């Protein structure tokens, strides 16, 4: 009875992982990562691992994306200051990726 | 004290010390933190020294009172305990070396840096002593996480941050590969204990599952050991880390990777159902030789002193891999001694480079040309370190090299030549730099514009504030380390103990019996008994003298007549240098290529 659920959850996680890798823009990647964390939690729950599901929910959907978003905020805020001397290619790439 | 106490204490002491420093560092002045850190480091050295006499066979400590089938067991033989002891000694040296080295890291938190060093120590000691594969992964990650942070310590300088990031990403990815491999092994055997894993594999034939799991598990160790083509992160990280951290990274952390390969192979994959001896031997001999030659060739090309030393570490790691790939007790014994002596010599050389950085704010060979004439003592020590690197008797490096060459020469007469060439080139490069920097030998080196290279100029100094006298510990510690290197070569008891330990190390039956109980030993194939050579031989002394003489000749040639033949070598080496691009994507692509090639090569031989 569990097998279809497992298959769906694994499929979802695999697709999310692929999209997360192909999403080159960190903010959107963080959102996909959060979705993937959620998918992983569901997968772990159907694999009868509630402990891991809980911590994945806390870490994968909340903590890691939050840290990434805070980093992006810090990193992209600096770009308004203009490029520093000797920082090659700084003005071309504003830290948000392409 | 019984081994069940000493083994966990060796990990618990630095962990507890780190906590003490993190808390006490908020109120204690800098001196108090240094004293506390030194006391903890001494405590761990004492603990491991007390453990040493108990390691005739394999000393075990079942944690939590659980047997190996259920819980985690710490298991130490001479080589594991010896490596842990080396790590503890180098940590003590580093803590003493940095007594007055750094300026205050962040004002109020003087204890954070030594606390991180102690956590790093706990990771290394735990990795060397554990008898459980997943536990080894955990301590591998502890070692890694603290090392990344320590490497990026100088946040005012851009290059350490880049080096630390490359280091962190490549190592973490490799660790995840290993964990996948652990998962595959667990699926096959349902075990995590090394000895139990070895026994569990014996029930099946060697199939692609075992080969793939072996390669994946070993990937993290290959990256840590900086075996070509997994080595690219190492020069980037070692060239930029703070000097005391470099002493640990090059002195012992890289060697722990080699130890991990040997330990996992012998305990898990050496029996039936594992990786055949011939496949392992051929593959890792080739990898070792490739690594050694690449390291030596790249070392010769460097002008950034720390990067030069980092590539010389890669060259020597290649020799260590050759030593363990022989799969004989005498090769393993020689390598063990070589690792210990090399750790002392390399840490001493990094420490002396730190003096240059402190005095002149540069680690650039041409930039420092002739400038350090007043540091005569440092210069003499630097030359001694270079000769130790070249394997001159009576240094421990010479004895270790001689013993390993002896073991290698039995089946492969051309291998000693590799040892001589690699140690001569790496020693000669360091000697060349010493002659130029401390004595102004030869003519002023000309700049080489347009070449892909890292200069050692414009380093952020590691010390700020008014000009001060050179802290005596910054010279005393390297001198003591070099003395230790001599002692390793001159005190026969050390070599004898390691030779005995190598016999146990290469005997999976003994390990299995110690960890799982005597009944378990029957399934393992017996080790090769017989005395392991442990003393200087005529051939060893001669080859040591030869490589030292070659090193001197190379250094003198390089300083007196640089242009013509140096340019010829430079042209051929430029392609190799281009590959060291500093680009994270390149490094990971190389890692993927390495994993794929290893899979294919080992599968073809089974």
């Amino acid at each position: 009875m569990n097998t279809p659920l497992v298959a769906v959850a694994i499929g979802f996680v695999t697709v999310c992982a692929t999209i997360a890798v192909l999403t080159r823009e960190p903010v959107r990647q963080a959102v996909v990562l959060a979705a993937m964390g959620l998918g992983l939690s569901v997968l772990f729950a159907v694999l009868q691992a509630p402990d891991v599901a809980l911590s994945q929910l806390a870490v994968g959907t909340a903590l890691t994306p939050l840290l990434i978003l805070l980093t992006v905020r810090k990193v992209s805020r600096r770009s308004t200051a203009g490029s520093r001397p000797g920082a090659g290619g700084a003005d071309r790439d504003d830290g948000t990726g392409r | 004290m019984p081994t069940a106490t000493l083994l966990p204490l060796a990990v618990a002491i630095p962990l507890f010390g780190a906590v003490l420093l993190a808390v006490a560092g908020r109120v204690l002045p800098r001196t108090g933190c240094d004293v506390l850190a030194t006391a903890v480091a001494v405590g761990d050295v004492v603990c491991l020294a007390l453990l040493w006499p108990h390691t005739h066979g394999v000393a075990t400590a079942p944690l939590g009172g659980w047997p190996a089938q259920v819980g985690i067991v710490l298991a130490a033989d001479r080589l594991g305990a010896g490596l842990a002891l080396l790590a503890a000694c180098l940590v003590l040296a580093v803590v003493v070396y940095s007594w007055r080295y750094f300026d205050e890291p962040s004002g109020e938190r003087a204890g954070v840096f030594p606390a991180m060093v102690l956590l790093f120590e706990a990771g290394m000691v735990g990795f060397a002593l554990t008898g459980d594969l997943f536990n080894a992964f955990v301590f591998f990650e502890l070692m890694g996480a603290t090392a990344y942070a320590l490497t990026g310590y100088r946040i005012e300088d851009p290059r350490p941050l880049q080096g630390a990031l490359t280091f962190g990403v490549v190592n973490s990815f490799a660790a995840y590969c290993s964990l996948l491999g652990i998962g595959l092994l667990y699926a096959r055997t349902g075990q995590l204990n090394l000895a139990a894993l070895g026994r569990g594999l014996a029930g099946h034939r060697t199939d692609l599952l075992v080969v793939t799991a072996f390669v994946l598990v070993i990937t993290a160790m290959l990256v840590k050991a900086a075996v070509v083509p997994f080595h690219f992160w190492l020069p980037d990280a070692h060239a930029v880390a703070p000097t005391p951290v470099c002493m640990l990274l090059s002195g012992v952390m890289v060697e722990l990777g080699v130890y991990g390969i040997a330990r996992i192979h012998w305990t898990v994959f050496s029996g039936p159902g594992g990786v055949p001896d011939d496949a392992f031997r051929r593959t890792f001999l080739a990898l070792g030789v490739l690594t050694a030659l690449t390291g030596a060739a790249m070392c010769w090309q460097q002008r950034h002193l720390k990067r030069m030393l980092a590539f010389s570490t890669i060259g020597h790691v290649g020799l260590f891999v050759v030593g363990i790939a022989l799969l004989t007790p005498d090769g393993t014994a020689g390598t063990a001694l070589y690792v210990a002596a090399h750790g002392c010599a390399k840490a001493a050389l990094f420490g002396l480079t730190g003096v240059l950085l402190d005095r002149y704010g540069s680690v650039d060979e041409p930039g420092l040309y002739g400038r350090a004439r007043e540091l005569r003592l440092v210069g003499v020590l630097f030359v001694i370190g270079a000769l130790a690197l070249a394997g001159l008797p009576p240094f421990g490096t010479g004895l270790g090299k001689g013993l390993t060459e002896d073991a290698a020469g039995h089946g492969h007469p051309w291998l000693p030549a590799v040892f001589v060439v690699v140690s001569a080139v790496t020693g000669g490069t360091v000697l060349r730099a010493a002659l130029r920097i401390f004595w102004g030998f030869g003519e002023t080196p000309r700049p080489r514009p347009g070449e892909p290279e890292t200069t050692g100029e414009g380093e952020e100094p590691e010390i700020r504030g008014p000009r001060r006298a050179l802290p005596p510990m910054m010279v005393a510690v390297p001198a003591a380390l070099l003395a230790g290197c001599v002692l390793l070569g001159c005190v026969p008891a050390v070599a004898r103990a390691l030779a005995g330990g190598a016999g146990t190390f290469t005997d999976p039956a003994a390990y299995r019996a110690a960890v799982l109980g005597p009944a378990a030993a029957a399934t393992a194939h017996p080790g090769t008994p017989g005395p392991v050579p442990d003393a200087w031989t005529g051939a060893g002394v001669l080859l040591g003298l030869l490589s030292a003489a070659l090193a001197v000749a190379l250094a003198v040639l390089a300083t007196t007549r640089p242009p013509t033949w140096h340019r010829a070598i430079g042209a051929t080496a430029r392609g190799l240098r281009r590959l060291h691009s500093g680009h994270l994507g390149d490094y990971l692509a190389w890692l993927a290529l390495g994993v794929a090639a290893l899979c294919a090569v080992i599968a073809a031989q089974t």
Partner: protein
Amino acid sequence: MSARARLLMFAAAAIVIGVFYGVASAETPSFGRASHPYGDRAVAASLAHRTANVVSSVNFDIRAFDTLGEESILFGTVLGATLLLRLARDERRRPAASERVLPTTRLFGVIWLPVALVVGVYIVAHGQLSPGGGFQGGVVLATALHLGYIAADYRVLEKVRPLAVLDVADSLAAGAFTAMGLAGLAAAGAFLKNVLPLGTFNEITSGGTVPLLNAAVGVEVASGVIVLLAHFLDQAVEITGNDEPEEAR
């Protein structure tokens, strides 16, 4: 290396790795099989120590040494972040500006903050009985506190977040794990041995040292994650370089 060469090299390697891994997967015992020797031994060991949640028992009793290493990694990371995200010589701290918060947002935070705190404590406390434990509860506790940031503004968060205390708590909890291991060594001759009375199965005090280690991890994770997030928030909100214009948020 050019991007193209790099990609080609990766593609070739990935195909080989994929083939090997694929064959290995086919040779791996099939998904959902009945034989789990180590798992069965762990269940028996956990029941022998009267711990209802076997995963907690594995984490805090049977393989507690793994968790000691893991907690040390967390401790090291917090120290490392302290080291790496310190104020550089050319930076200064600028107090965060006060912010206007929508009343509904404030209400959301005010209501959820206590709920999240209670849930976090509950998850930590019942670690040896039900799913969850020190780690999961600790993260929930740490996240709960940051609802304060949503509800009010950064200055309020800074007030309810005694960083120095939390930092010390993080260290002490990490030390407590080691200390309990040493207590086992002193009392019963084995590091991390479960020396306390095991209690009655399925009660909150059951499992000997498991609830204590669990609580230590809960404290460490909660305070460690708060400190970690604080360093990141400080970077994002308060710390500016000299060359950086002060901008209104």
